[in-house]
């Protein structure tokens, strides 16, 4: 006798549970892949927090349905698991936003305003050697050099 339909008892799928879970995953991965590109949604990730809030509301509705006495919906096993995973996603997101980004060394000995920038000679992307002195004195095609903006970045992009 086929067992699969008997196991589900013909109950409708608990869509708030699943959509809440999927939404929480989206709330997590959309930050580095999309919203982090724009300062307005990156500096304070309000869109992602909103998405997480919506996800948690959906999960709550889904859990209530799953455990309702009328037993109309499935999800007694899947529900708590999906909810736990979604909370874990939110916790990880908070870690990324509030901890990992801030864990920077103090750079207390970095050169200050008014000091002469330490000289250096490095290789550029074409393999040529470039010194700071050369960068400062080189003229852009039409304008004399007003200065140089040194941008130190993490690399590994």
């Amino acid at each position, binding site marked *: 006798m086929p067992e699969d339909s008997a196991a589900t008892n013909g109950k409708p799928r608990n869509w708030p549970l699943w959509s809440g879970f999927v939404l929480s995953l989206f709330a997590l991965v959309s930050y580095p892949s999309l919203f*982090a590109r724009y*300062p307005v949604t*990156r*500096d304070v990730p309000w869109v992602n927090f909103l998405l997480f809030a919506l996800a948690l509301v959906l999960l709550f509705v889904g859990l209530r349905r799953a455990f309702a006495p009328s037993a109309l919906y499935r999800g007694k096993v899947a529900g708590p698991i999906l909810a736990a995973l979604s909370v874990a996603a939110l916790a990880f997101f908070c870690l990324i*936003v509030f901890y*990992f*980004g*801030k864990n*920077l*060394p103090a*750079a*207390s*000995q*970095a*050169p*200050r*305003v*008014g*000091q*002469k*920038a*330490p*000289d*250096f000679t*490095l*290789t*550029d*992307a*074409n*393999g040529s050697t*470039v010194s*700071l*002195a050369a*960068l*400062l*004195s*080189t003229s*852009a095609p039409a*304008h*004399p*050099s*007003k*200065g*140089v*903006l*040194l*941008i*130190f*970045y*993490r*690399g*590994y*992009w």
Partner: protein
Amino acid sequence: MGVRPVAISVDSPAESQDLCRKAGYTYTLLSDPDAEVIRRYDLLHKGAGVRGHDIARPAEFLLDSSGVIRWVNLTGDLRIRARPDQMLAAAKSL
């Protein structure tokens, strides 16, 4: 604007060239693979790179034509970068 942007990281020249190609950058990217200059500017972030390499923490320095620093940005949070308007205001005062 007359100010020349120069970016420095531990990426090799090959990696920088790749980045320039992909992102369409036209400005100068310099390689500091042993983080020697990064150390000179006290910007070392030990073990923070992929596979535990030492890299730079983000920072910007605006130098005038004689090499004197006129503006520094040391962000306290990796996610919050200096806004273009802040840099422009500093560059205008050169």
